[in-house]
């Protein structure tokens, strides 16, 4: 059973001064599943991401990814082990072309970054791979456009493309549909499901849209004021009285 767990978090706490953004959180994320992390604003979701992916050091606790202790490892080392993330705000290389956005990540994964004098154009395999990724995301037509000129929804897809290009074993998406129109949200949800089916990558997603959460997640984690309030299948979470009381209210029935 242990082998099914890809990310294991034990007793994780993070304090800023006296304020605890996370308090003693222990969760396991199963390989090959889509897990959703939910909780009201300020529940500690983004801090959870930042601590796990090496942006912050945890105050206490341990993070194990694929059997390796990655607690306090710097961000680039976490990424190299195959744990990648996207960001809540659009976080791409705005002035570079869409293709270059993906290529940067591919260069990093294939350890070609210290090749100093050979032109990027001669790396056929990298460019083909970038093309495949853009095609999968439906962005191939925009490959040569400067990223900042894309529509908002497309920028968010580039964001996912950057994560995808680093050959992750697990992707942590931070509110991938934040600020999207209903159409864009639907497109994003379909895209995540498609990527999941095609690649089998494990996903952890924070999301505020409950419809999205309950339609795609296999398992749901609920954070509340920095503590893990509940975890379980969508059905269990729906019926959990503490979750209803603390966070969901009556909105689930709607």
């Amino acid at each position: 059973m242990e082998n099914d767990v890809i990310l294991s978090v034990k007793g994780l706490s993070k304090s800023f001064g006296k304020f605890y953004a996370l308090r003693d959180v222990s969760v396991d994320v199963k390989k090959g599943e889509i897990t959703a992390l939910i909780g009201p604003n300020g529940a500690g979701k983004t801090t959870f991401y930042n601590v796990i992916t090496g942006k912050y050091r945890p105050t206490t606790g341990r993070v194990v990814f694929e059997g390796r202790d990655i607690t306090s490892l710097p961000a680039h080392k976490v990424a190299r082990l195959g744990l990648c993330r996207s960001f809540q705000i659009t976080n791409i290389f705005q002035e570079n072309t869409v293709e270059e956005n993906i290529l940067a990540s591919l260069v990093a994964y294939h350890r070609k970054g210290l090749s100093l004098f050979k032109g990027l154009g001669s790396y056929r395999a990298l460019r083909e791979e970038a093309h495949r990724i853009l095609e999968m995301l439906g962005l191939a037509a925009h490959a040569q456009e400067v990223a900042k000129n894309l529509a908002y929804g497309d920028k968010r897809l580039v964001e996912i493309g950057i994560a995808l290009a680093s050959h992750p074993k697990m992707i942590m998406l931070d509110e991938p549909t934040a600020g999207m129109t209903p159409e864009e949200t639907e497109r994003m949800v379909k895209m995540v499901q498609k990527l999941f089916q095609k690649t089998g990558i494990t996903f952890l997603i924070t999301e505020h849209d409950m419809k999205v959460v309950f339609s795609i997640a296999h398992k749901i984690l609920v954070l509340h004021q920095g503590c893990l309030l509940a975890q379980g299948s969508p059905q269990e979470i729906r019926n959990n009285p503490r979750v209803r009381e603390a966070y969901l209210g009556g909105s689930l029935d709607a």
Partner: protein
Amino acid sequence: MEKGKSLKLAALLAGALFLFIFPHFAGVFAVLLLTEILIFALFALSFNLLFGYTGLLSFGHAAFFGLGGYAMAFMVQHFHLSMLPALAISTIVAALGAAIIGFFSIRRDEIYFAMLTLGFGMMIFTLVHQWRSLTGGSDGITGFEVPVLDLLVKKLSLFSPWAYYYFSLVVCLLGAILLWRLTLSPFGLILRSMRENPERVSFVGIDIKLYRWIAFTAAGLMAGVAGALFALYDRMASPSMVHWTMSAKPVLMAILGGPRVFLGPALGALIFYLLEHFITQYTQSWMIFLGAILVPIVIFFPQGVLGTLIAWAQRLIRREGHGE
């Protein structure tokens, strides 16, 4: 797109042709001026590897220009080395200096990086200013000859301004080509990505400190080559080569020409010197004019002269394309 490419190629060829042929017909003053422009073009291009490509504004880049210059002057005066070994040693000295200063400086971002490089640069300045026995203090190192270029099969004197011009031209072109290759490589892509968004780069598995360090060292190395050439051109290595006002020059040139285009800073160097040359014929206060030109460029043309020209050309070509 094709049209833009052929236009670019034509402009480059014309520029190269000009640089090789013009001095044949020019007087000594023009040749000297052009030599200085070439040297500063390389200096500005090396600075721009950090500024335009990596997003790091260094205010101490003259440190490596000066290290190269002092090393060259020292080697030639005390050891009478010939050109190539002296140039090689000066380059290595500058690169080592950049590796050491860079190791610390790249740990900070933005304004703090600028201040740290300024601080280290001025430390080098006070060092060369105070260490009289080694550097000649405020007088600098003077009174040496341009060493011969020993090509094994033949020894060439570089004494005449024309000979030194062509030597500088070859070195600066080679240096520029190396820098240009660097920007086109996967390494260059990572640098540009770091300029846009360093945090995101670290989250795809890049050790940004390492990449910044390499870029800093490479930029310092090339600044050292320019400095070595300048010391020979000027027959002198003086503390002014290391002062922060010297560090401001490549910054101005890059902004003037356009930091996002590879040759922008080189064009900036050309504009800078031509302006200085023409304005100082009429008035002593050419800095006022430089400031008066810099201010509107920063406000209205942040892409610099070359960047703006290219954007215009692209728009024209696109419009023509639509018309057909």
